[in-house]
């Protein structure tokens, strides 16, 4: 089989789901940058779930749940998406081929571990990766994986395996594509609405594990690492950095992407407060990176050197304070 959506253009993005949606909507005539997709779907969050374990480590999320970007866009800008899951892997492959045959570009959820083009040292069992398939030649799929600089390929067997792994966040072969893409977006309504929602959620969440309270909760746990086994303590700290930097976040756990969104939003609406908030968010992102750097130093430390958990915890608390000012500023913008 030979099929290819010839006019499709690969875009290099920071995050898989926002990258896929940005590419897909652009392909259908709605030019929406990755930061706009991220911001308008209300994807910025913080959550620390000590009771949900991933590879023995608690879940630390800097953005909303998988598929939340797709759902957020449907709700906020009126895109209509079709999502299809499969119980039989072969049926899933057949359907993907049929959609490609129709000339569509198709989003897919996959595992990272089984994608052959991923660098060996980046392959972990994470099942909520997203990519776009835009063609097939013989048994090789042409793939636009947004976190890669150029488009990539995977053979039929490999992609099928990656789409049908079982376990936490199992993709179940999920495919998605738009059935309706609006020609324009009512920015004057939707930008204020989504920004206010994000700011309120971060500032005033009722649960102690989310938003700024979640960041402070994590800081408290960092201080308590003093009493834990040193190896575990180091792994815990390293895990925070991985969630913040290794997973495609655009740097500083999505804070730079959000700052970029605020800049774009400020230009669209001619709103100077948003530009100011964008600059503040950039400074906050820099602070998150200083926090990561402190952790890197402690991971490197020798056994004889004490790790100053209080200092690391205190740094994170100061990041939370700084970030709180950004959201307070945002609430005064409209």
């Amino acid at each position, binding site marked *: 089989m030979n099929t290819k959506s010839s006019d499709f253009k690969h875009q290099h993005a920071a995050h898989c789901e926002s990258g896929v949606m940005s590419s897909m909507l652009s392909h259908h005539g709605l030019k929406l940058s*990755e930061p706009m997709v991220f911001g308008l779907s209300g994807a910025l969050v913080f959550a620390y779930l000590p009771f949900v374990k991933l590879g023995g480590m608690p879940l630390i999320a800097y953005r909303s749940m998988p598929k939340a970007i797709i759902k957020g866009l449907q709700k906020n800008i009126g895109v209509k998406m079709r999502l299809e899951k499969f119980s039989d892997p072969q049926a899933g492959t057949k359907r993907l081929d049929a959609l490609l045959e129709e000339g569509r570009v198709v989003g897919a959820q996959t595992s990272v571990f089984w994608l052959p083009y991923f660098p060996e*040292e980046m392959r972990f069992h994470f099942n909520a990766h997203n990519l776009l398939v835009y063609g097939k030649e013989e048994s090789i799929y042409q793939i636009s994986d947004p976190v890669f600089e150029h488009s990539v390929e995977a053979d039929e067997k490999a992609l099928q395996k990656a789409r049908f792994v*079982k*376990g936490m966040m199992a993709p179940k072969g999920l495919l998605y594509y738009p059935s309706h893409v609006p020609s324009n977006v009512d920015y004057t309504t939707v930008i204020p609405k989504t920004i206010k929602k994000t700011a309120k959620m971060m500032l005033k969440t009722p649960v102690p594990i989310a938003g700024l309270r979640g960041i402070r909760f994590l800081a408290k746990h960092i201080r308590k690492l003093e009493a834990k086994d040193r190896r575990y303590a180091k792994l815990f700290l390293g895990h925070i950095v991985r969630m913040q930097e*290794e997973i495609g976040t*655009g740097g500083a756990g999505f804070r730079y992407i959000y700052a970029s969104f605020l800049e774009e939003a400020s230009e669209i609406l001619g709103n100077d407060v948003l530009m100011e908030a964008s600059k503040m968010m950039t400074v906050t992102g820099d602070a998150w990176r200083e926090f*990561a750097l402190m952790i890197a130093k402690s991971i490197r430390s020798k056994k004889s050197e004490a790790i100053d958990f209080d200092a690391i915890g205190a740094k994170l608390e100061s990041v939370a304070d700084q970030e709180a000012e950004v959201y307070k500023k945002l609430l005064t913008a409209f």
Partner: protein
Amino acid sequence: MEIKKVPQDHISTYAENRKAIYATDDKGHYGVVASSGWHVEEEATKQALNELERLAGEAYEAVESGEKSPLFYHMYAQRMDLIVLSQSVGMFQWRVKRHFTPSVFAKLSDRVLARYSEALGLSIDDLKLLPSRES
């Protein structure tokens, strides 16, 4: 972060790939920059990989000494743990754990072995063996 401050540390974990980072230009406007990686990220990734390797190494010795079945080693070698493996094969953790016992593992049917083979991406023959040290 300013574009000129975006780390370009050519980190080994990227294997020559570059990631997109959002950074500001001279005028303070955001754009996407390709980064060859930040040493801080490399250290965190390596730490996680080393931990997985350490577990696989310990498992290797436990299998060699006859204490555990080869499945125990292959689980860690494929960067899984008990939770991930049991979810991947769709069996309860206690059942998977039982299969770490060499005598129980030796009696497993091909049907059960096929489930492990699929989840771990290994042939049934390879599943029953411990690879030689060099590999």
